[in-house]
């Protein structure tokens, strides 16, 4: 029987809990999704510690109730311990430790980014998608908080091939939208505008770090390039060009991401891709990544359900099940501490 796990994630603004059985999600509760259906994975800031504190018991209860699970049936409790906001992580950890002690269950600590990496393998309660593991993979994690290229060698074995040295890709898209006069969330706005001009790359903004020779990303300078371009335009001109500006900016980000991913494919010889994170819901990026995989005779997996691209506890539970299966539980639960800048490398076994 596959491990039955209660998972908790409070890495940023979401208070999330889920119950999973192996890779199958029995329930997944994300507080903010109940209140507002936002499209994008960025933060509508309500990051306050108190907010997590107020919601977490209810979110856990809901997850247990929806899964129709009694606590004595659980095999373990999994919790995110980083990366993320220190005070937010603390709330999840404290509640997970308390429940593990109260119910006498083992505790498993999970890296939030591991969750995103495994998210294409998270299944619904019927066991779909049925895709099986076929290591190694090349993982692209792309969201408002992260942009990383990961060599996913085997279960729980990671190597970081490249990462952003300043802004995350999703953050750059969001800030670009803000510069063009749009509110939050900005990513989907750019995506829609770009479609209206067929994703034309009219302005050919600089492709950041293209010649750096490594697999790292940098989007801060691109942001500045857009700023200067927009500043030189009159309001009228800006209005006229807005879709082209949006599209060109998005192209600069995505083409850089695709080129670096391709470079990683060539260097590692791995043509099986996994893509996760909030920006991975962008249809244009998906098309580009599929074309890239096809060009090299490989394939690409995305999370099967939209919510799995954003912060959620289901993906944490799936990693938790694998860790529990391997007996990788926390021995001294009192000592579990949050690691705000936790790297995937630190969680690799």
């Amino acid at each position, binding site marked *: 029987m596959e491990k039955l796990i209660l998972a908790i994630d409070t*890495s*940023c603004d979401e208070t999330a809990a889920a119950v999973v059985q192996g890779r199958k999600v029995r329930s997944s509760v994300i507080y903010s999704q109940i209140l507002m259906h936002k499209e994008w994975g*960025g*933060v*509508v*800031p*309500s*990051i*306050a*510690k*108190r*907010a997590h504190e107020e919601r977490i018991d209810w979110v856990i209860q809901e997850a247990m109730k929806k899964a129709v699970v009694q606590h004595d049936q659980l095999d373990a409790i999994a919790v995110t311990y980083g*990366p*993320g*906001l*220190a*005070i*937010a992580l603390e709330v999840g950890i404290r509640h997970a430790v308390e429940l593990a002690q109260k119910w006498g269950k083992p505790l498993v600590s999970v890296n939030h980014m591991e969750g995103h990496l495994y998210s294409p393998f998270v299944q619904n309660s019927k066991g779909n998608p049925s895709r099986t593991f076929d290591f190694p993979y090349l993982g692209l994690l792309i*969201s*408002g*908080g*992260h942009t990383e290229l990961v060599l996913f060698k085997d279960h729980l074995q990671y190597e970081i091939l490249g*990462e*952003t*040295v*300043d*802004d*995350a890709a*999703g*953050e750059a898209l969001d*800030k670009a939208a*803000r*510069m063009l006069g749009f509110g*939050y969330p900005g990513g989907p706005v750019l995506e829609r505008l770009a479609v209206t001009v067929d994703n034309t790359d009219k302005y050919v903004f600089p492709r950041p770090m293209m010649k750096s020779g490594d697999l790292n990303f940098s989007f*801060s300078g691109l*942001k*500045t390039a857009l*700023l*200067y371009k927009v500043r030189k335009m009159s309001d009228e001109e800006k209005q006229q060009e807005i879709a082209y500006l949006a599209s060109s900016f998005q192209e600069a980000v995505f083409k850089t991401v695709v080129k670096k991913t391709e470079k990683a494919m060539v260097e590692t010889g791995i043509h099986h891709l996994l893509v996760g994170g909030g920006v991975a819901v962008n249809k244009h990026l998906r098309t580009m990544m599929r074309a890239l995989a096809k060009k090299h005779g490989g394939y690409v997996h995305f999370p099967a359900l939209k919510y799995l691209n954003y912060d959620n506890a289901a993906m944490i539970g799936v990693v938790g099940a694998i860790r529990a299966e391997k007996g990788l539980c926390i021995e001294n639960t009192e000592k579990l501490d949050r690691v*705000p*800048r936790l790297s995937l490398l630190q969680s690799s076994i």
Partner: protein
Amino acid sequence: MTRTLTLSKERKNTVINATKEVLGKGGLVVFPSDTVYGLLVDATCDEAVDKLIAFKNRPPGKAISVFVRDMQMIKQHAHLSRQQESLLSSLLPGPFTVVLPSKHTLVSKLESEKGTIGLRIPDYYYVQQLINQYGKPVTATSANLGGSNPHYSIDSLLYQIPKKKAELIDLIVDAGKLPRNKPSTVIDLTGEDLHILRQGEIVFEREDHYISRSAEQTKKIGQFILDKMLKRKMSKPIVFIMKGDLGAGKTEMTRGIAEYFGINRIVSPTFVVYYEYDIPKHTEKAYAASFDKFVHADLYNVADEREFEDLGLETYLDSPSVIVIEWGEKLGRLYEKFRQKALTVFIEIQHKSDQERIVDVKE
């Protein structure tokens, strides 16, 4: 016959003693500094200065700057108003040479034709130790021949100068490759208004007003401001409140400040609002190591002032932390709390043009 000594922590005393001895005999020493390799001779010894001028091919009447120990030594050799003194104490020690009316107590060939003298208190431990122990000012001119570029390594220096010239050097103190800091900024204080004669790494326009022309310079300015704050040893948390448009360079400056503490993995915290880093205990700067946490916050996404009170940022004020807050002008009511509990500095970075940023500092 030129002697070469390698400078290291362990051999510090040997090297400084040998340097003192050579200087005392009117000798010429190549010595590292916070900027480039310098040419040191005793600034009170005529023959030594002649030797230096011969080495540099320096036309007579062109001033040569001098390392001094502290403000007191500046006042011993130059005229300084109280207002100038307060300006200088905010800048020095640091990569600046200040030009002041001379009291003519040093070798006159070091002065300009107008009777002014360039003085410098370097932010460099070994030069400070040397002058402390030697007790007299020494020349601070860069170790190159007139008209050519300064040197960051001994190899490059020796490669450039002819053998005959090289023989004039009595002692070379080799500290390896120096970080590529530009020569000092030269500030003329002899006129009515402050006047910049040469722009160095830290481009300084007037008190607490800097100009950056690159990301690298923005980092340097951040480190410079931090250094000044650390030197006050207030045993309080240090808080930087940063204001500036998207793309102004706030994260670059934060990166500079973090690097000072040996933290090299700064990425934007916009998404999670803030990241916390441990300050390594093995940093070379002893006082810097008395701080525990480095916190990099970004309030860009925070919409509501009431949220700050639950953000937990102020909990860092109760421990030895260094906190940088981008978009810190949004702090609102919490700002007063930060000011009370921490040594707080307000930095505003503005775009002047595509390449230039103005950095204003207020306490």
